[in-house]
Every structure is written in structure tokens, then in C-alpha cells.
């Protein structure tokens, strides 16, 4: 399933590397005690350190270090027990220190791997180059005054993890899958909420193209700060096409930073290579090298949850689910948890069907997460029990489920209140059948003449006569007996 751009001169493949900025879940900022919470009034969460006041010094927030290590472990990456914070020097109005404290040649986390779950059930390993900790800048607001720019420093100093992939991605779709998988892992780990709309996860894409069969990397362009998975995919697609067009018309691609305009679906130059900053990185002399021991890492490791890949493998082996179904269920930890509670001791495939089609349908329609599901896992499980013991037909169960969704009541209550018990008493069904046969002699004639598909019509009539409570299988069996004498 390779992604090929058919050009006039031949086939092209696209080479993509992603840099994701993930906001670390932490109460306070990376180097100050100010709150890192989103949504406060402008400049409400700003300490003297975040405002770059004279003489202020950074002190590392240990919680953020733990979170970075935790994420590194989740990405099966090398944890560097000694790393160094460096200053990235450049001027901007919302960056009070005149430099960003980041990590440069000695990041806290080194190489790792992320597994993509392809739609056909296959997997593909994508290399992680590194993960480092850095502080966010503030926000410049240009539209409040015609002549002034307003600065909000609430984000100044907020902890970020920059997670850099190797240039292993080969299609916009893979880029999308990478982002979704990374987000899933971060959420499992509890290290980033992955909310791209609020900006707690942002993505820069490095894109280049090359003729199929070629192995060297051509000049790349970096598309900055794209804020949804869909836009990342669209931006890559557009940028790759642009590269092919430039090459095929005899031009060359300049290394530069570009912006994606989602309204026009195009990228345009933000900063050319000539205008690129010389960041003058050097080790921050206000901070000692960051060092921790094996015990620190081991303690974090002991608290890791079962991660999506392991969970998926277990769902396949333990529940007999397809790779695709397992992949869908494990993408969100809460969904997987819900499923397991429903599937425990029951028909797992049936549980999967009910969760992924019936329940997800309701949740999508209501736009609520599974943690706010109107039907609890316990109640859905009980409904499946009522199907299993023939109390409810599938049809009745669906009806009961709808009522459970509306009322929040449990399955037994709904069945009792609505008198929804399936009729399995042959006497009662026989009586209904006799009546219908007597009243529809013509249909009986046609059936007996070979139009056997009328069995469906007859069944429907019996269901109607019994207010839908006759057990459908039993119904058909009795009907056939009487019609085929």
C-alpha cells in the first residue's frame, strides 16, 4: 500500500519526519513554580522567572523529568541518565529571557520506536530520533490593538517534550497514523493530554520527495505548527506535490520553513534559509547537568501501564479479535478498559460488536467520551447475559439498549418494566400461528407452491401478534412445521 506521486517524469515517493511538541502534564512550569494550567486570564500564571526579570534563575521541576523518562520508556527508547539543558538564543517579544531553555546535543531520551497499526492489520516500525525537554514561549496577540501587540506570558515556561521521529514516514496517511499512535501512547502514560485544538500537542513536518528507487534524501522543507491530524496530512500532501512540480519543471527546492494555510490548503514561505536564526546554543550555566540513577528509572518503569501494542497483542490472543478490531479498541485506554469489563467471562466477539458498533455509535452521536457513557460496562455486560440465556432476542436487546441509553437504567429493570421477556412457550406461539394461517389461506397456498421466502412474512406476523416477544428462531421452527404438513 505504498503512496506514490505519479509525475510526468516518473514516480515519486515522499519522505516525512515529524517533530511533535507535547505539553507535559504537570501542575507547574518546567523551571518555575507558576501554574501550567490552560485557560487562565492573560498573564495570570507568570512568575518573576517566567517574565525574565533580572537575577531570576531556573530550577528544574522534577515532575517534568519523571514525565519525560516515562514517555521515553513508553517509546522503548534509550534513557540518558545524564543530559544537559542548553540555551537557544533568539529575540522575540513573547520570549522574555531572550533565549529558550531546551536540550541540544545531550537530550534526556535517545532513540526509540513507535509501531504504526496499518488499516490492513499490518504494522510498521517508525524510528524515534530523540525526545527532549524545553520551555514554551508566551503568546503574542496582534489583533487587540491596531498599533500594539499584546503579550500573554501564561505559556511562557510551560513544559514541553519535543519528540522527533526519524524520516521513516512515507505517506500522509502514515503521518496521520503516527500522530494518532503517539497521542494514544502519551495518553496511556498520562504524560500529555494530546489535545491538538488547545495546542497541548503541536506538529512540525519535515517533507521531501525523491524518485522511487532512490535512497538519498533530498532537500526538505519544514512546515511549522500544524494543529490537527487532518491538516498535517493535507499539508504534507500539498507540500509533496509542490516539490514534485518544482523538480519536474527543472527547479530546485530551497531548505526553508513554511506555514500551512488550512483555508487555502497551501504552504508558503515563512523563513528562508538565509533568514534562519543562528541560535548560538550553549549549555545553560544556570543549570547543572541533569543526572539521575537506575533506581529513578526503575521506579518510573514499575508504574507503567500496559501500553497499546501489548494490549493489542493480548486482545488478539486472549479474545480472538482481529488485529483491526483490537487496534480500534486499544487506541484509547478507557475504551479498552470498558471492553474488557464487558468481555470478561462472555462471548468476546459479541462484546466487541456491541462496544464498537452499538455503543461507539451512541457515543459519537452524543460526542461524549466512554467515561461518560450512558450505559455502564456492567450494564452492557448484563444485557449480553440476557441475550446469552435467551431472555432477549438480538432485536429485543437492541430495543432494550436504546431504552438503557435514554434512561440510564440497567438491563434487568428495563426488561421487567417493559415486559420484554422473549416468549419461549410453544403453546402461546402455536396459538398465534394457527390464527395467522387461518386468516391468510392465499399466502399459505403460495408458500406451499414453493414461495418459501414467505417464511419471513409469516415470522413477522407472529412477532407482531406477540408484540415482538416471540423468540424468532423458535417461531420459524414452529411455522415451518405447520406450513409444511
Amino acid at each position: 500500500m505504498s503512496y506514490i506521486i505519479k509525475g510526468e517524469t516518473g514516480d515519486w515517493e515522499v519522505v516525512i519526519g515529524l517533530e511533535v511538541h507535547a505539553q507535559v502534564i504537570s501542575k507547574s512550569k518546567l523551571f518555575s513554580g507558576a501554574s501550567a494550567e490552560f485557560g487562565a486570564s492573560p498573564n495570570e500564571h507568570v512568575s518573576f522567572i517566567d517574565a525574565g526579570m533580572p537575577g531570576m534563575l531556573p530550577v528544574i521541576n522534577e515532575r517534568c523529568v519523571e514525565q519525560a523518562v516515562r514517555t521515553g520508556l513508553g517509546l522503548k527508547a534509550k534513557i540518558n541518565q545524564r543530559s544537559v539543558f542548553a540555551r537557544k538564543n533568539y529575540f522575540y517579544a513573547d520570549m522574555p529571557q531572550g533565549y529558550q531553555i531546551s536540550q541540544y546535543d545531550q537530550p534526556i531520551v535517545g532513540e526509540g520506536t513507535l509501531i504504526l497499526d496499518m488499516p490492513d492489520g499490518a504494522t510498521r516500525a517508525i524510528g524515534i530520533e530523540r525526545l527532549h525537554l524545553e520551555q514554551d514561549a508566551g503568546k503574542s496577540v496582534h489583533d487587540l490593538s491596531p498599533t500594539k501587540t499584546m503579550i500573554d506570558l501564561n505559556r511562557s515556561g510551560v513544559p514541553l517534550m519535543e519528540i522527533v521521529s526519524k524520516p521513516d514516514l512515507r505517506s500522509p496517511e502514515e503521518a496521520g497514523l503516527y500522530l494518532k499512535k503517539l497521542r494514544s501512547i502519551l495518553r496511556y502514560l498520562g504524560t500529555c493530554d494530546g489535545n491538538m485544538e488547545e495546542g497541548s500537542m503541536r506538529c512540525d513536518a519535515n517533507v521531501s520527495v525523491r524518485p522511487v528507487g532512490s535512497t538519498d534524501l533530498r532537500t526538505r522543507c519544514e512546515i511549522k505548527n500544524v494543529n490537527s491530524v487532518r491538516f498535517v496530512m493535507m499539508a504534507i500532501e500539498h507540500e509533496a506535490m509542490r516539490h514534485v512540480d518544482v523538480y519536474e519543471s527543472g527547479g530546485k527546492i530551497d531548505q526553508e520553513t513554511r506555514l500551512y494555510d488550512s483555508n487555502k490548503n497551501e504552504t508558503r514561505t515563512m523563513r528562508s534559509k538565509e533568514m534562519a536564526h543562528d541560535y548560538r546554543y550553549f549549555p545553560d550555566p544556570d543549570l547543572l547537568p541533569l543526572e539521575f540513577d537506575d533506581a529513578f528509572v526503575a521506579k518510573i518503569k514499575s508504574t507503567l501501564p500496559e501500553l497499546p501494542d501489548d494490549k493489542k497483542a493480548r486482545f488478539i490472543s486472549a479474545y480472538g479479535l482481529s488485529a483491526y478490531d483490537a487496534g480500534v479498541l486499544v487506541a484509547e485506554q478507557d475504551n479498552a478498559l470498558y471492553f474488557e469489563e464487558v468481555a470478561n467471562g462472555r462471548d468476546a466477539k459479541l462484546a466487541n460488536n456491541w462496544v464498537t458498533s452499538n455503543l461507539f455509535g451512541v457515543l459519537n452521536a452524543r460526542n461524549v467520551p466512554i467515561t461518560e457513557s450512558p450505559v455502564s460496562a456492567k450494564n452492557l455486560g448484563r444485557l449480553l447475559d440476557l441475550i446469552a440465556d435467551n431472555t432477549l432476542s438480538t432485536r429485543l436487546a437492541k430495543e432494550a439498549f436504546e431504552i438503557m441509553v435514554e434512561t440510564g437504567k440497567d438491563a434487568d429493570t428495563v426488561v421487567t418494566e417493559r415486559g420484554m421477556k422473549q416468549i419461549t412457550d410453544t403453546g402461546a406461539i402455536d396459538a398465534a400461528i394457527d390464527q395467522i394461517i387461518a386468516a391468510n389461506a392465499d399466502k399459505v397456498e403460495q408458500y406451499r407452491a414453493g414461495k418459501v421466502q414467505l417464511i419471513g412474512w409469516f415470522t413477522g406476523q407472529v412477532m407482531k401478534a406477540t408484540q415482538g416477544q416471540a423468540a424468532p428462531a423458535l417461531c420459524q421452527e414452529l411455522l415451518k412445521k405447520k406450513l409444511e404438513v
Partner: protein
Amino acid sequence: MTNLTSFTIADARDKLAKKEFTALELTNAHIAAMEKAKALNAFITPTPDIARARAKESDARLQAGKAGALEGIPLGIKDLFCTEGVQTTAASHILEGFVPQYESTVSQKLRDAGSVMLGKLNLDEFAMGSSNQTSYFGPVKSPWKAKSLADDLVPGGSSGGSAAAVSGYLAMGATGTDTGGSIRQPAAFCGIVGVKPTYGRCSRWGVVAFASSLDQAGPMTRTVRDAAIMLKVMCGHDAKDSTSALLPVPDFEAALGKGVKGLRIGIPKEYRPDGLNGEVAALWDKGIQWMKDAGATIVDISLPHTSSALPTYYIVAPAEASSNLARYDGVRYGQRVEGKSLDEMYGKTRAAGFGTEVKRRILIGTYVLSAGYYDAYYLKAQKVRALIAKDFTDAFEKVDAILTPTAPTAAFGLNDKQDDPVAMYLNDVFTVPASLAGIPGASVPAGLNSDGLPLGLQVLTKRWDEETLFRVCQVIEDAAQFPFLKVPA
């Protein structure tokens, strides 16, 4: 009646306890002296009202028997320490009018110990200079006069205001900061004691940063004992400074009086280059003799990378400064010059806000960190810095302390040496190596040259061994019987 400004901190401490005079009287005497000595330009911002209010509080605590270690002692604070509610400028136009809402850890500790702040002392702009001539608020004049020169003398720098105020009896002691010699060299020029403790002893929190890996606060006083008393209050671990040492603070004063009998004193040959000023060399020899007389063993040592120290320092310090001073951009505080664009505002603000020497160092620092030059300059300098530190580590295997001159010359005229920055940088040739190594160093006034100007001797010890430092300093002090300036009538 004796002028109250003549006492040492130790004396005043005892006399205040005995209620021979009040803290307010002591403070008023100093405020009067400051008024009279305005021409020295030692203070950028005098704070007489704050001083009197705090002196009254001190008197109440003295009365209640709740005196702190520096209760009622009037001190000057170098204007590099942020002081809550009091303008803090770093002697730069760019910070003119900046009033911090916070107090630096060191000045807070001094305040908590009951000391009285007389005002904010002049310095070289952002502590960059060795003569206090780069201050936006004008140069400081030394209270000393040369026999041969009618011109005023520089007090040294960057803690020039501190040195002038203490030697001229405007304050009993002062805070200084030392990045490459900024406490020790002005102490030598003005004939007082200046101590730069081990890097990490004093918190840098709230001190306007020049070069973070080198900056260290320390006391400037007229006696070794006073320096020991003041330093004990100033240092200690501070969780707000990641480079602050998590070590207990010794009682430095208790180390005094132990002498140097049995100590091995190192004399590094590299500090006696050809052409070393004869009077400086002679004083050094005198110091060596004092050590012998006091029972110490003299050991000739070598610190082979000494000649690389100054060039190393002038890469490392400007590199850090170029980054540390980026925050003075006109956006949030201090001076701003408006421009049509953000970049123009930056350019105009910084062009108008910084003086020549500061600009020079920002440019040097920016250059040595630039792509393509980083390895050749900054990285190489860091490697040489490690070698310089190792020189000292090796030397302290053989000796307990090192004795050298503090500066290659005595103080020079206010109008000399202004157009040659490199000649100015040479003032720090003997002080910079210890700064790069992070070891403690002190300057003690040891004598006068033939022109009647003070010369200092420098004592260096290994990291965290300020106790030995003070012992050696006190022996020099006792032997030198330094002729201090007369207390102004």
C-alpha cells in the same frame, strides 16, 4: 567624641550590644559621611530613609535582646543585587528606573541578620570593567590620592562603589560581586579586604547576572574578621539557585586566630612574569617572609595554564553575558526606545541602553557562540578552563594555600587607560584564574607603594576551604599593619 564610622563591624557589634551607642546613631553617622563624600559618587541610589527606619528596628531588637549577627550594622549594597522597592540599575541606563518587587537572597540574608542598608553602590555597567568607569551613572573616585598625581584615582572595579565606600568610611562593609576579580581588584586598589568565596557558596538568586558560571557575591570590609562575620551571613544553600551548594556554612570567624603554623603556602612562578612591577614583586616577597615568620612552609609551585586564563575568561564571560543580557529588550521593564517594528525597537533600545564596554562584550560573546566559531572559541575555552581548574587541584595536593599579588599595579588615574580595553583587561590577570576554577580568593591590603597607594596580596585556597583562607589573610593583616585612610573629621 570618636567618629562612629571609624569602628570595625566587630567593634560596633560589641558596642551596640553594650549600648554604648544606638544603631540609629551609628547609621546617622554614616549617612552624614555619605553626604560629605558625595563627590566620590560611590552610591547610585542612597537610601537614608530606609536606613534610618531599619536602624530604629534594630534598636528595638537590640533592646529586646533579639539581635541578629549584623544587628544595626550599616552596609552598602552593590547595585547589582535586586532590592525590593528600591531602584536596581546594574549601573546601566537600560535598567534606569527599574524597581524590583523582590529581594536578592544575599541582601535578604543580610537584612534578616539585622544589617541596615545605606543605599545602592555604584559599579561598572553590568559589572563589566576594572575601574568603575563604565557606569552609566558616572565613575567612582577612590578616596585615596597618589603623591605624584593631582588627578583622582579609580577605585578599581567592578565593585568600585563598594571599595570606595568602605575605604572612605561611608559604610562599615559592602557587598561585592566577583566574576573575574571584581571584588579582589578594587579591594586591593582601595586598601580593604575583599573575599570571593567558592563558586556556589552565595546564592546568585536576585543578582543581576553577568556571567553565570563565574559570578559570586562576597563581602568587602576593612578587616579580615569583618569579612568573616559578613560572609557567614551571606552564604548558605538556596533552593532557588541550582548552582548553590548544599553544604553547611562554617563559622568563619571561629577559624581566625589559628595562625598558619605548619601550613604549606604555594608560590606560583607564573605569577612573576618578566616585567612584573617591582614594588608589587617586593610586596609579594614581603608577604612570603611574613608567612615564613609565622611558621608556614613556602613551596614553589607551578600553575602551567595561567597565561591562558585571561583569553579563556574573555571568551567564557562574554559568551554567557551575551545571552544573559538578551532579556534587556525594552519589552517588559527598564528603558525602551520605540521603533516602527519589533526589531527596530530592540535595536534602538539596546543601542541607547547599553554602554560601549557592554556592547563590546555582547558582540564578542555573540561571535564566539556563532555557528562555525563555537568549537574554535567557546568549546576550546571550556576545555582550557578545565585545565586551569586542574592546575589548582594538582597544586592543592601539595599546598594548603597560594599567595600571589592581587593586581599587577596599584590604582591608576581616572583619565588613564580608557581607550585600550585589552590593557584594562590585564588588571585581572592574577584574579581571573581562581574565578575560572571556582576556588575561593581574597585580597588583603598589605602595604603602600612609593606613591602612597595601597597594594594587596591575594590568597587562594581549595574549594570550600574558606577557613584556611581567612587564617592566612589574618596573618597578612597582622603583619602588614596597613596604614588605613584617616577617618574624615
